[in-house]
């Protein structure tokens, strides 16, 4: 059988289809375009060398902190000491082999592109909705653009970051997508928000 790229199935796609593409824009939900996701963990004692290598390779300023940083098509979300989620826009299904090779000896790279379902939330009501779930101060002074957190929302482990002003992304383990969506839908309604999907 010839190799034939399969379309990846978005975990939130069936739910997003139920939303209208028009609305007041206070809560806009979408699934980010196909991207590679990997857990990157520094090898023992290689944190500084890893940051230097990543700066050279991807032009990114690595921060060993709960921060979202981005450069070009690469982004890093700090999830713990010496641990990040690496995001790569438009990556192929087997993309993770490349950073694994590039960072060999400095970091362990584990492909998680399918492991996480990512929901993007935009609009003035996004922070309110997220604050209903995460016990985190979402005030722009406390959780500004570039802030990230590993937290729990609706009893579901979540990694949360503010990508740009009033645009957040939440990564949860894929199998929870339906439960998480039910919570999003109920909580949006409870707070007077009518979610729309980005056109």
């Amino acid at each position, binding site marked *: 059988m010839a190799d034939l790229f399969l379309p990846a199935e978005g975990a939130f796609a069936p739910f997003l289809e139920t939303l209208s593409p028009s609305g007041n824009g206070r809560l806009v939900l979408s699934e980010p375009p196909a991207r590679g996701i990997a857990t990157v963990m520094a090898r023992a004692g290689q944190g500084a060398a890893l940051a230097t290598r990543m700066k050279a390779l991807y032009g990114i300023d690595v921060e060993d902190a709960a921060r979202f940083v981005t450069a070009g098509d690469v982004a890093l979300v700090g999830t713990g000491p010496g641990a990040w989620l690496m995001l790569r826009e438009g990556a192929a299904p087997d993309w993770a082999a490349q950073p694994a090779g590039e960072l060999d000896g400095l970091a*362990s790279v584990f492909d998680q592109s399918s492991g996480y379902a990512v929901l993007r939330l935009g609009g003035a009501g996004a922070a309110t909705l997220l604050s209903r779930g995460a016990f985190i101060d979402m005030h722009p002074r406390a959780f500004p653009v570039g802030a990230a957190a590993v937290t729990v929302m609706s*009893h579901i482990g979540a990694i949360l970051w503010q990508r740009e002003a009033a645009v957040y992304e939440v990564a949860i383990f894929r199998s929870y997508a339906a439960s998480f969506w039910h919570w999003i839908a*109920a909580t949006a309604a409870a707070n007077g928000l009518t979610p729309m999907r980005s056109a």
Partner: protein
Amino acid sequence: MSRLAAGGLIDRSQPLRFRFDGRDYGGFAGDTLASALIANDVRLVGRSFKYHRPRGLLTAGAEEPNALVTLRAGARAEPNSRATTIELYDGLEAKSQNRWPSLGFDLMAVNGLMSPLFVAGFYYKTFMWPAALWEKLYEPLIRRAAGLGALSGAPDPDHYDKAHGFCDLLVIGAGPAGLAAALAAGRAGARVFLLEQENELGGRLLSERHEIDGRPGHLWAREVADELSALPEVTILRRTTAFGVYDDRSYGAIERVADHLAEPLPGQPRQRLWKIVAKRTILAAGAIERPILFGGNDRPGVMMASAVQSYVNRFAAVPGRRIALFTTSDSGWQVAADLRAAGVEVAALIDPREGAAPMALPDVPLFAGGTVTSTHGRILRSIGVRAAGGRVTRIAADVLAMAGGWNPAMGIGCNLGSRPIWSEAIHSFVLKAPPPGMALAGAAAGRFSLAETIGDGLREGMAAAADMGHEGHAPPMPRTSDDKAGVAAPWHVPGGRGKAFVDFQHDVTDSDIALSVREGFRSVEHLKRYTTLGMATDQGKTSQVNAHALLAMYSGKAIVEAGTVLSRPPYLPVAIGAFAGHHRDADFRPVRLTAGHGWAVEQGARFVDAGQWKRAQWFARPGETGWLETVSREARAVRSGVGLCDVSTLGKIELSGADAGVLLDRLYINNFSTLKVGRARYGVMLREDGIVMDDGTTTRLAEDRYFLTTTTANAARVMQHIDYCRQILWPELDVQAVSVTEQWAQYAVAGPLSRRLLQYLLPDLDLSNEAFPFMAAAETRWRGVPMRIFRLSFSGELAYELGVPAAYGDALVRALMEAGRPLDATPYGTEALGVLRIEKGHAAGNELNGQTTAADLGFGGMMSTKKDYIGRVMAARPGLTDPDRPVLIGIRPVDRVSRLAGGAHLLPTGVPDIAAHDEGHVTSVAFSPMMDGWIGLALLRRGRERIGEHVRAVDLLRGTDVEVEICSPVFVDPEGVRLRG
């Protein structure tokens, strides 16, 4: 109608209809149910808890002990709702409680005649013998006679929301002190949360006739509220009660989002539970007026003076035509003045304080130094008054307003253990050492005059903002009208006629407290438990201080010595539903669905919960008569053809790093550093105490990379264990680990035809025994997607597991079914999986039960003697190596046709069924299609030495007793020929 023609803060342009105890009434927007009942001359609203005494409204606030009603009907019926806090809405329906057959005629009122029986502690003194009748007879009888409203029994149709709040300053209460504090801090730029239990801000300003800057106080409150609403950093939560103070400056609050509506709007929650973290808090919850203790003080028509003032001033609802005042506080005089201003006749003002005259009250008969000694009428008609000289007169009055002084409402300030202390200045308890970050302001701090209140708020608000780095100019202190705040100590009129009630809701009287003291229950905590004082739904808000004053008096102590109790959260009852929030029914806990879930649904799967996962249990086909037929078909298909099973839920952990093999050697009883790349090995890990923790296969993907699997149940625990080991025990090791359970959708393809099926799907791959033997593993690609292939077998058949990234899992299982169509590939679920593993004697959750050692399960030979590993030392303890321990064996019925029961105990033949003869138990049973009969796995004492012996499997719960033969746990293919086929 007792509605004044004009005035009040009600909206007369919005008339509302409502129904109470089956009768229709009218009210206005802005009314509470209580004020609307007063405006309609309804004076009897409830029956007391124990004696079923008729009761009327006592207060106008959340502290109300009497007017508990069942609000709404059907599934939304809410018992024990306080009429004083229910906002009136059109179509409201409420019923009184604790009466039968009706409120006016309550047969249970006979309890009152038997009151000598029902004194304090009667639970402990009565019904002592025979004790056996307590549960079946006494308690149900008591519960029926004494009680509150009943739940509907129907599921709550509403939704509850949860929210988190963070602020510099939390202000609890939006009376004059709270408004001033929020204004000062808000103008300075601080993030402020202002909580008010009512919809209207203003607190007592709404009920009193005070002036601020020459205008009515409620207009000032509205202006401040408007300004606060416009400040971007200020959040006002109306209809919100702070109910508890918790550690780390966190607070619980309940927002009643839709309780003022007949039912919530679509999507709207009924209530929202707030968890608020506040760097600073100002408790400005005001004060609660305390009753005066005299005989007959619970008669309908006897009310708090502040309540009368609220009803008249705020709601323009006059509770009586001739109102008498019994006051030990200057505030009572102000009520008399307000009544006169509203044109209401004041029958008398009785003030036991000699010479008290805070203001002139022309045309009000004054009884300085007098007391009220009795009340008369089913609903109050007259009172007995003893004048200073001792002469007793009857005075006609249909309402007696009592003003016994004010108790600061500091309840939640004591939640963390701060103890209130007695203040001689205000004759009540105050909180001098509130919890960290909290300050009190205004009446809650025991400073009652309006000027003090606003001054407190401004000062504390500025201080809190400055603490948080927000400097600003204090708002100017407004001009306020002068109010007198003189007050006497809690007042008791001894020797009056009738019972003097202290706790109105729990029917505790002054004589109950005297009895408690006589019987030796003299500490406030003992008094509380002996009399149940303060333990009703109102938590003693009107009774606690009076009771402790009586306790002090009866025991000859000063009240400062008697002390008072601490309050626990919640300050007011909070619905359990609010704590559950979204998480009820189908959303009780999150559900995890595998990538192939939709496919399994299409295949007619029935699902079983495996932790949070939904796993396909079996796939019934049309015409099958029961699960056993389905499961047997699925198991047979694996033994004779090929079956497909979704095994994605098993835990998967990837380890990488130079020392990954070293860590695995320490985690498992056997070795993994010696494993070849491209090979898998079964492993067992122990807990530190030597008991088996988990098992699974580990594959070496590269020199420095391993892929480990766990049981579904232990996936999170093993991940946690590995992180603990690499981060805490051996941080010097270079090893990184992460859960990849969710990354890979994995399917078992099992059965003699499994290789053929895979060749259809992956024609370029050499799957021969030589190229890809048992326990081989490979990484490949399938349609451009990474794929992992493992030759593993749980069923004992030739079998493989295929993994692809979960986004392609649905595509893979469909492709496998398609490729397997010519082979009649059969999906099988967890039940068939269980049958297959029992036939092969593989231990699973039932055997890895937290009590078994590796040796018990037959893995003793795997325990390395050449290295150290977690659990090695403790596994060598005598108790864990005792040859008498129960070990894993197989059983089958001697008659071959009997059914086995899991959980049955194993006993020798010919002995009584008593625990002393117990030799083990049956852990797993299955109907084996291969053996054509029931088989089981069991843990039996010295079992391996007893193969061939007969014992009995006795199940006293199911009433079965089956003679079984002890055999090897491996029933099918003990040589493993099929496995390597």
